[in-house]
C-alpha cells in the first residue's frame, strides 16, 4: 500500500514525465472559416499595445505560480497568431525567458494562415525568437479551398511555404481531408503532392463537423452534401497512414506525422499529459500546484478577457482534478500516441489499475497491444479510438 504522502509526492512530480509548456492564444483572424470552432474572431480594430500589456501581465501572474520550473516550449496558437505584430511576439518571448528558466532547445511555434504571410513579417517572427511554424494550408486546389471558406489560394499557400522555409528550419503544415465530394483517389494524389512540399512534419485532419459552426448549421439543414461515409473515412485514414509511412513520416499521433525527432514537442506535452499554462482569451491550462493538478480556463470573449486583465480575474473558477479524472485524461491523450502509455503512470495518477479485463478484452479484439509495460492502440484500435477509450474510461 502506498501511503497518502507518497501518493501526493508522486502526483506533485507527475508532470515531469512530459515537461512544461506555455500556450499563448491570439483570438483574431481575417475571416472566420465555416468549419472552425476555435476561439477566433474577426475584429475591426485591434489595440496592439493594450494586448501586449495584457499578455505580459498574464505571464507574470501564471509564472508566479510555476516557479522553479524549466520551460520547454512556447506555442502561439489561434486564431491566426501570424497576424500579431512580431514585436508583440518578441515581447512575450523575452518576458517568458525572464520569468522561467528555459530549456536550451526551447521550441517556439507560431501558427500561420497562408493568407497573412509576408516575407517581412516572417523575418520579424524569426528575429523575435520563433523557431517553428505551422501553416494552415488545408487543401491544394482552389475550388476546395473556396468550399472550405478559406481566403487564400493554393498558390498563396505554396508561396507562404517558401517564405516560411526561408526563415525557419522547422516548418509544418496542416491539411484537411474528407472534404465534400473528395474521392479516395483524389486524396491519395493530393497527399502525395503535399508530401513533396513538406519536410519533416505534417498534420492531416479529417474534416470534423463541429457544433456551433456554420458547417454544422448547413449539415443539419441537409446542405453539406458529399461528405465521406464512415467506410470512406476509414479508407482515407488508412491510405493516409500508408502513404506517410512510404515517405518515412511516422504517425506519432492520430493526425500528426513526423520524421523521428521532428515531432511537435509542445503538442507532445499535451499528449503525454505534462503541465502547461495557457494565457489569452479562452486559453486552457493544466497546472500542478502543491501536489494538486488544476484545469484552468480563461474568459473566452476577447474584449471581456482584455478588460478582465486589469482587474486580475481572467480565469474562470479553477477545477481541481481528482486522481481518477487525471488518470482518465492521461489515458485519453496517451492512447493517441503511437508510443502509447505506461500503465504504471495511470495507476500512480488514479490510485487504481487500468481495468485488466477490459485491456485484455481490447487486446483480444486487436484494438490494443500490451507489451513491456506499455499499452498502445493498434492501427485498427486507433481508427475507433473513441470506442476504445469509452471502454476504458473509469469513474
Amino acid at each position, binding site marked *: 500500500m502506498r501511503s497518502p504522502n507518497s501518493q501526493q509526492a508522486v502526483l506533485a512530480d507527475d508532470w515531469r514525465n512530459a515537461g512544461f509548456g506555455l500556450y499563448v*492564444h491570439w483570438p483574431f483572424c481575417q475571416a472566420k472559416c465555416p468549419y472552425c470552432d476555435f476561439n477566433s474572431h474577426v475584429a475591426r480594430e485591434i489595440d496592439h499595445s493594450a494586448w501586449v500589456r495584457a499578455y505580459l501581465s498574464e505571464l507574470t501572474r501564471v509564472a508566479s505560480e510555476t516557479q522553479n520550473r524549466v520551460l520547454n516550449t512556447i506555442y502561439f496558437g489561434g486564431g491566426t497568431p501570424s497576424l500579431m505584430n512580431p514585436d508583440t511576439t518578441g515581447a512575450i518571448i523575452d518576458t517568458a525567458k525572464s520569468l522561467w528558466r528555459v530549456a536550451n532547445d526551447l521550441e517556439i511555434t507560431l501558427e500561420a494562415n497562408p493568407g497573412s504571410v509576408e516575407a517581412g513579417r516572417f523575418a520579424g517572427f524569426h528575429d523575435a525568437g520563433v523557431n517553428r511554424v505551422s501553416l494552415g494550408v488545408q487543401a491544394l486546389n482552389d475550388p476546395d479551398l473556396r468550399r472550405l471558406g478559406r481566403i487564400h489560394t493554393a498558390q498563396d499557400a505554396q508561396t507562404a511555404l517558401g517564405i516560411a522555409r526561408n526563415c525557419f528550419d522547422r516548418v509544418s503544415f496542416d491539411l484537411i481531408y474528407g472534404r465534400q465530394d473528395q474521392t479516395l483517389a483524389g486524396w491519395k494524389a493530393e497527399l502525395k503532392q503535399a508530401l513533396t512540399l513538406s519536410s519533416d512534419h505534417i498534420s492531416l485532419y479529417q474534416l470534423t463537423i463541429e457544433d456551433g459552426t456554420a458547417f454544422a448549421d448547413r449539415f443539419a439543414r441537409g446542405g453539406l452534401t458529399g461528405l465521406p461515409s464512415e467506410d470512406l473515412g476509414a479508407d482515407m485514414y488508412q491510405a493516409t497512414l500508408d502513404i506517410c509511412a512510404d515517405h518515412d513520416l511516422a504517425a506519432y499521433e*492520430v493526425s500528426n506525422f513526423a520524421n523521428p525527432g521532428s515531432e511537435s514537442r509542445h503538442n507532445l506535452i499535451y499528449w503525454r499529459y505534462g503541465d502547461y499554462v495557457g494565457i489569452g482569451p479562452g*486559453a486552457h491550462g493544466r497546472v500542478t500546484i502543491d501536489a494538486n493538478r488544476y484545469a484552468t*480556463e480563461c474568459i473566452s470573449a476577447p474584449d471581456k478577457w482584455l478588460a478582465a486583465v486589469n482587474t486580475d480575474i481572467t480565469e474562470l473558477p479553477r477545477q481541481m482534478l481528482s486522481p481518477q479524472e487525471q488518470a482518465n485524461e492521461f489515458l*485519453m491523450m496517451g492512447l493517441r500516441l503511437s508510443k502509447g502509455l505506461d500503465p504504471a503512470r495511470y495507476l500512480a495518477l488514479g490510485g487504481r489499475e487500468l481495468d485488466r479485463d477490459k485491456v485484455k478484452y481490447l487486446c483480444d479484439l486487436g484494438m490494443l497491444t500490451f507489451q513491456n509495460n506499455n499499452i498502445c492502440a493498434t492501427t485498427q484500435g486507433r481508427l475507433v*479510438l*473513441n470506442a*476504445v477509450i469509452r471502454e476504458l474510461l473509469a469513474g
Partner: protein
Amino acid sequence: MTDLSHIRNFSIVAHIDHGKSTLADRLIQETGTVKDRDMQAQMLDTMDIERERGITIKANTVRIEYTADNGHAYILNLIDTPGHVDFAYEVSRSMRAVEGSLLVVDSSQGVEAQTLANVYQAIDANHDIVPILNKIDLPASDCDRVAEQIEDVIGIDATGAIRVSAKTGQGIHETLEAIVHELPPPVGDRDAPLKAMLVDSWYDSYLGVIVLVRVMDGVLKKGDRVRMMSNDSLHLIERIGVFRPAMEKVDELGPGEIGFLTASIKQVRDTKVGDTITSERGGASTPLPGFAPSQPVVFCGLFPVDSAEFEDLREAISKLALNDASFSYEMETSAALGFGFRCGFLGLLHLEVIRDRIEREYDIDLITTAPSVIYHVHMRDGTVNDLHNPADMPDLTFVDHMEEPRIKATILVPDEYLGDVLKLCQDRRGIQMDLTYAGARAMVVYDLPLNEVVFDFYDRLKSVTKGYASFDYHLTEYRQDNLVKLSVLVNEEPVDALSMMVHRDRAEARGRAMVEKLKDLIPRHMFKIPIQAAIGGKVIARETLSAMRKDVTAKCYGGDMTRKKKLLEKQKKGKKKMREFGKVSIPQEAFISALKLDG
C-alpha cells in the same frame, strides 16, 4: 334522506373522445356543484397521465344536485367512463351501479366502434338510454345524419336525441331535464337488510382503501359493522361520503345512493369488485349477482435498464398495483436481463400507461419485453398449462398441441379505407365474419388471434385509415393452431426478451423483419455481430451488423481535453442506458421497436 323518486343514477358512455368528460364538466358547472372559478377542463380526469393524454382511464363518480323545471330537487349521481377499449371493464362495472346511460355521440363523427360496444352493454344492463348529439358547435356537425345512423346501426329511437355542445354549454339544461324525466329512479327498500354493491376500490395515501358502493337496500351508516359476503370478512365503517367531486362526508347512504366508505382496509386486494356488503348482524342472506373481475390479457416483462434499480422497480410496481387491481405482476428472472417482473395488463394502452408512470413518477428506465397473450399448452400427458411467457415454453417433445385466444373485432371504417383494413386483418390471420354498411361507413367483424392484435394492430389500423377507423374487440375462445416460439440471437446469444410465440406460417416473415430492424437499432460495435432469428435450433433469418470502422477524434490538443473527455464520458453514460448481452449493448428502445411490424 332522499326519496328514491328524486334520485337519478346514470353513466356517461361514448366512443373515445366524443366528449363524455367535457359533458360531465358542464353538468357539474350548470348545477353549481363546483364554483366557476374552481372549474377546469375535464376536471374529473385528475391523473397526470389522463391530463397529459387527454383521455379518461378511471371511471369517476360525482353527486350533483339539480332543481328541475317542475320545482323538485333531485340528486343525480353521474359516472364518467373511459372510452378506450382497454378500459371497457370500467364501463361495464359502472353500468351495474346505475339505471340509465347518456349515450354521447360526436355529431361531427357519428357512430363508432365503442359507441356500439357501449350501447350493447347498456342494453344488457337493462338501462334506459338518452342519446346525446354532442359537439354541435363544430362546422362538421351533422345531427340529422347522425341521428339517422343511430337508428339504423344501433336500432334505438333517436328522435328525442338532445343536441348539445359540451363546449359552449348549449343543450345542457335540456340534458338535465331529460335525465330527470327520461331515466328511471332507482328502486330499493330502506327497511330491508343492507345490500350494497362494491363497485370499485382504490388506495388513498391518507385514508387507506376507499370503497365505492351503490346501496341497493337498507342503509349504510358510520360506525356500522359490516360483512363482505364473498369472504365473510368483517369491517367497522369509519367514514361515509359522496364525491362532489371532492370527498364530502355524509351521515348515511340509503337505497339508490352512490358513495364511498372507508373501514381500515389495508389493501385493495382485500376488496373484491362486485361483492355485496351487508350488516354483520341481521344481514342479507343472498348476495347481489355480482360481476367478474377484470382479467389481464396482455403480458410482458418489465426489467430495469440498470439492474441496480430492481428494488426501486419492485416498490414502484407494488405501489401502482395497490391502486389498479386489473394490473397483475410476479417476479421474473431472465438469463439476459436479470431480475424483473412479468406483468399482466388489460391491453396495450394500459401497458403503456403503467410503463410511463414507472418511468416518470419513479424515474426508472425500463426494458419492456415482447408482449404476449396467454396460450394453453396441451401436454402429451394430458395436462394443460397456461403460458404467459415464451421463455417458459416447454420442450416441444412434451407438447401435444397449443391453443391461442381469439377475439371478435368490430371495425367501423369509411368505405375508401375498407380495402386496407381487410388486407390488414387478413395479414394478421383474420377470418372475416360480417361486412355491412351504414351510409358510407363499412362495419366489418373479424375473428382474429389476439396475439396478432396485441402489439401494434391499433397503430397500424390508425395509420392505414388516417385515423378514421374505430375498433373494438372482446375475447371469444381458445383455438388450436400451429404456434412456434421464435427466438432471437444476438452475437450467438439468445435474447429471451425478444422471443415470442408466432404462427408457423408467419415465423419467417416476422423473423426476417425482426433481424432487419435490430440491425438498424443496435449501434455498430468494435466487432461484427451476427443477428439471427431461430425456431428451436433452426436459424430462419440472419443479418450481420458490420463492425464500426471509424470513430476517432481528429484534433485533440490541450484546449480540447476537458470538452473531449466530457463528451466521451457522456457517451459512456449513454451506454449505460443499454443492456449488455454478451459483449453487445442493445439500446432500451430496440426492444419495443424491433417488435413493430410493417415499418
